[in-house]
């Protein structure tokens, strides 16, 4: 943008900038000097070294896991609410029949590769059978490990 000003105005502005300019630069330098000289203000962390002290928040949505007791029993009834709640079809609930002929959970297949960790499945589950675990180191070099079967045992029904 160009504006038309008189020569006097031009020089006034020029001189003003000659004084305010350097001062503003010194202000900027003082801030960077302040941060340079205060190493206690460093915010980054040394990640693998501090692994032991790292605690994720309770609500952190890492990976879907099934709630199981010591014997490996779960609360899943294979109702399929989670499967329907999932926006990107990351969950396949494959039911089976137990000896009494009742529909129970056969395999709970979880496709971690397509999961967006939105947590809608956990919200939809009426029995509290699944949770989002605070696992945050979920990267892998083995693609097949991303297809998981979450339950160890068949469901209770």
């Amino acid at each position, binding site marked *: *943008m160009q*504006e*038309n000003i008189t020569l006097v*105005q*031009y020089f006034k502005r020029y001189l003003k900038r000659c004084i305010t300019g350097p001062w503003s630069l010194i202000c900027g330098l003082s*801030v960077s000097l302040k941060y340079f000289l205060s190493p206690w203000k460093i915010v980054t962390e040394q990640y693998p070294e501090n692994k032991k002290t790292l605690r994720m928040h309770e609500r952190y949505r890492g990976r879907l896991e099934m709630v199981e007791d010591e014997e490996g029993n779960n609360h899943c009834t294979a109702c399929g609410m989670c499967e329907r709640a999932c926006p990107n079809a990351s969950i396949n609930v494959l039911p089976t029949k137990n000896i009494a002929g009742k529909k129970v959970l056969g395999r709970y297949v979880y496709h971690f590769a397509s999961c967006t960790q*939105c947590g809608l499945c956990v919200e939809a589950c009426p029995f509290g059978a699944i949770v989002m675990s605070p696992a945050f180191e979920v990267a892998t070099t083995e693609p097949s490990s991303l297809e998981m079967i979450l339950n160890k045992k068949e469901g209770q029904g």
Partner: protein
Amino acid sequence: MSATLPPGFRIQRETNTEEFFINMGPQHPSTHGALRLALRMDGETIVELVPHFGYIHRGMEKQAESMSYLQYIAMSDRQDYLTAIQNNLGVVIALEKGMNVGVPEKGEYIRVMLQELGRIASHLVFYGCFGGDLGGQTCLLFGFKEREMIHDILEEVTGSRLTTNFFRPGGSRYDVPDTFLPRVKAFLDHLEGAMRDYERFLSKNIIVLERSVGIGILSKEDAIAYGCSGPVLRASGVEFDVRRANPYSIYDQLDFDIPVFHNGDCYDRYKIRIAEIHESMKILRQCIDKFPKEGAWRSKEKPVRLPVGRYYSEIETAKGLYATYVVAATTGEKPYRIHTRGPSFPHIAALNKMVQGHKISDLVTIMATLDPVIPEIDR
């Protein structure tokens, strides 16, 4: 302010140069994502700019037609990822209108506080990108430093740093933990000092003034005509803020100012965002004082089913007006159509108007001050 000599003293240039074409993006450090700008240049001066969208088009609105309403809330995180928590609210308010549910007072306070935290986070990213695009990499880190602290708070409350997926019709997904209020308070005290440093670092800097004052002027008329909103509109002198013009949640009970600047240049767009950070801090402090200790944080849970009808909501995100239009053709849990009106699209549309006659370096400044998020444009 960039002063030039009076006409008699100016050197009149008569050159016979050839215009040429430059392709800026989709892989370019300062197009803020996969945006392609086709530039017609005369030397370093831009003659014309044509933005090309669609490099990360995911068809969100089409996908929404085969999704339930709840699933679309999770989808709104992925639009403007810098203001994910605000987008959640935009969708949720539209759904609430359809379901006809109210939100208890505590739920509203939780909403407003997270909204304002999200606004500060987005504006801090703007601060960083503005400085970074001008060539000061240190600003980038400064902005992101405080933003990380906000994300820590968000992570504790919502379970995720960026894609929060937190609000639900009738309230939110969880109550806030006990540590929330003290944490926000401590953060605000920290931010107060940090912002003083950051403004000292950039606001008065002569190079920043030279680079941004009088650059990329968007007149009031143009800003309205192009449908700009948010800080870009208010920097052009239009006092329009959905929080004031069409209050949602409890914004009508809170005392805050709407900063308005009148030049419509890059520096005003920078200043207005800094001013909004301070306003958001003011709102947060009020909320901390008024926060109800007891009471429900969400109304009774109901299945998300909307009756036949058309529902519209608009909110003010950090970028501008975010509107959601839901068409329910059948009563059920799936929409017939959801349309989202994002704030960044009109801003990029107005870009050609702003850059003409400026240098390629100014384009970077103007892009930074429009603060677009490309996934939100493409959707």
